[in-house]
């Protein structure tokens, strides 16, 4: 009955209590959703990075890890047999990894060139499925093939801007005046984005330019497939070798920095060009059945291959593993700050509740309600008040998160910034049950803490004074 009494007391002044409930609900909704977004981001970043960049486990010649020198290889055949039959390993790719200077007729740039066997690489990496143009390294060509990231292709100026007839027609259909004004540009091929923009600016009236230029540039951009790229690298003997490759595919991940750096060529082509024994590799990448089996598999491999260095994803990229812990922590800090701010509102409401019922508390203490009970009653009221808001907020959050866990939450307005640091612009919020429990505990604790001061006020009263009739 004391519980039900406290609950009813909460609703003595419904408006005042509703204000607190709504405030707590909104605060938590924001906090929990933010937490879920951060969590979703981090998970996605980890998944992306395992899938596209580092896989679960990598094996190297330990000396290669020091300076990544081209001669620090190890015999692939010595491990391949055992690994491909090992339990829990679902993908295996032996790679050459060489630093190269890439040159086109217009620009040059440094690249990390991976020599891979397309089929093996597909078993560990998502990159072959991230192509936005062309194909991965399959197919027979006279000149060797190279697959570049979008960013690298842009840096090497392997892009043309051309307003084709079909685009022009679509534009006319969309907005007649736009179609007319761009006519002079149709069929012209422009090499850089900035000169394409300048050309647009010259032809279009300002309003149309402001509105359409970015989208137009995007849709007119096309990569120069089969464009030549010359790679220059050091051979194990210490000489510089150059070889020509042709761009056969462009990939794009959510990590622009990765896209700017990593290029893929056929294993045999690279071995030949860099003069490396094709039985040897720099790196073996492994994909495991699931994240949980990685630790034990890495453990076993370490003991089996004493002379090689076996590293898990979280050892290869400790900063990414750190994000995971950090993401949760950030979300919690955020919620704690929100609750701290809300606590003042709760204290205020509880204080009013107590002061208005001064005589009533006096009466209860006079007839024999002890301090502990008075205190628990006030505390329960505060917890009920806070928790009602908490439950509403969490239910809101669950619904919100459920919806956006399906569709994703699109940050593309700011996507450029996110992708530059390796985060996808569409985030799938994700939150664990443990975090909901933790948030509920925090909310309850806030209720308890917010009741301390008002309860102290009530406990200090003298029942005889409180009951005195003036």
């Amino acid at each position: 009955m004391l519980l039900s009494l406290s609950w009813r007391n909460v609703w003595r002044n419904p408006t005042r209590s509703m204000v607190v409930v709504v405030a707590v609900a909104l605060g938590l909704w924001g906090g929990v959703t933010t937490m879920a977004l951060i969590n979703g981001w981090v998970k996605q970043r980890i998944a992306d990075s395992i899938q596209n960049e580092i896989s679960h486990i990598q094996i190297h010649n330990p000396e290669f890890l020091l300076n990544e020198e081209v001669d620090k290889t190890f015999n692939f055949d010595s491990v391949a047999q055992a690994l491909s039959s090992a339990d829990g390993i679902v993908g295996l790719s032996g790679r050459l990894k060489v630093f190269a200077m890439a040159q086109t007729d217009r620009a040059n740039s440094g690249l990390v060139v991976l020599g891979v066997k397309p089929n093996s690489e597909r078993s560990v990496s998502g990159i072959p499925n991230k192509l936005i143009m062309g194909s991965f390294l399959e197919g027979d060509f006279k000149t060797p093939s190279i697959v570049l990231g979008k960013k690298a292709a842009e840096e090497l100026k392997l892009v043309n801007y051309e307003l084709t007839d079909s685009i022009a027609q679509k534009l006319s259909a969309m907005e007649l005046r736009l179609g007319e004004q761009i006519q002079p540009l149709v069929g012209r091929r422009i090499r850089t984005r900035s000169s394409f923009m300048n050309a647009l600016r010259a032809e279009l009236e300002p309003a149309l330019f402001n509105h359409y230029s970015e989208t137009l540039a995007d849709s007119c951009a096309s990569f120069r497939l089969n464009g030549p790229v010359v790679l220059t690298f050091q051979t194990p003997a210490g000489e510089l070798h150059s070889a020509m490759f042709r761009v056969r595919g462009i990939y794009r991940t959510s990590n622009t920095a990765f896209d700017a750096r990593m290029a893929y060529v056929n294993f045999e082509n690279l071995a030949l060009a860099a003069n490396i024994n094709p039985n040897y590799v720099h790196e073996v990448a492994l994909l495991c059945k699931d994240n949980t089996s990685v630790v034990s598999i890495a453990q076993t491999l370490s003991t089996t291959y004493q002379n090689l260095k076996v590293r898990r994803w979280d050892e290869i990229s400790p900063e990414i593993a750190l994000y995971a812990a950090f993401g949760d922590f950030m979300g919690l800090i955020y919620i704690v700050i929100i609750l701290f701010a809300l606590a003042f509102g709760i204290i205020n409401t509880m204080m009013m509740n107590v002061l208005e019922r001064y005589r009533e508390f006096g009466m209860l203490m006079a007839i024999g309600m002890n301090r502990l009970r008075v205190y628990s009653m006030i505390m329960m009221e505060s917890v009920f008040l806070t928790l009602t808001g908490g439950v509403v907020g969490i239910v809101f959050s669950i619904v919100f998160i459920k919806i956006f866990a399906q569709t994703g939450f699109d940050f593309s307005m700011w996507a450029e910034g996110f992708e530059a640091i390796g985060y996808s612009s569409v985030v799938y919020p994700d939150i664990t049950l443990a975090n909901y429990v933790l948030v509920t505990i925090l909310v309850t604790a806030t209720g308890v803490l917010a009741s301390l001061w008002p309860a102290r006020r009530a406990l200090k009263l003298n029942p005889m004074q409180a009951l005195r009739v003036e």
Partner: protein
Amino acid sequence: MAIIEVVNVDKIYNDSEVKVTALSNINLTIEKGEFTAIVGPSGSGKTTLLNLLGGLDSPTNGKIRVGDVWLNELKGSKLIDFRLRNIGFVFQSYNLIPVLTAGENVELIMQLQGVSARVRKQVAADMLVKVGLADRFASRPAKLSGGQQQRVAVARALASKPQFILADEPTANLDGKSAENLLQIMEHLNRNEGVTFIFSTHDQRVMNRARRVILLEDGRIKSDTLQ
């Protein structure tokens, strides 16, 4: 043995600049089964005396025994618990919790005493019958008249099975008929069930119903008569 014994009690308020002697040299015993009125002009010390008897305040000098306990020997939560189990209170107003029904208000005190839920409900219903409110168990105080609210307060006091019930001006806020009615119920409980009542009043008609009248003037007992 008397259930209340007051020995050489003085009460001096000196929390403000002026010292107020609210009671001086009070000696008094009250026996089980009494129906006693404490009367006197405003400021004569009636409330002060009842507060001392109820353990809500402590005397400046002298001591008070309730049952076999000297109140000055109880402190803090022991004193609160003593009040809970031994003394029934009916105040002039603010007796009831507005969000609880009449029945629940009566049950509350038994819950504080640790009585089981089933017994509580039964006893609360019985007590409400005794004060003539059998059909108002589920009514909130706001739906009851002032007189009915005071009767619920009496039922609550009864439910706690106290040694005696203190009532400070229980009829002060009531009209004549309700006051009469409340007094009748109290008197009935006193006669038939031996419940001890000590109440203060200004009202001559209420005074007339008391069997013992203690008249206070300037904090002293001016007269103490049986009628």
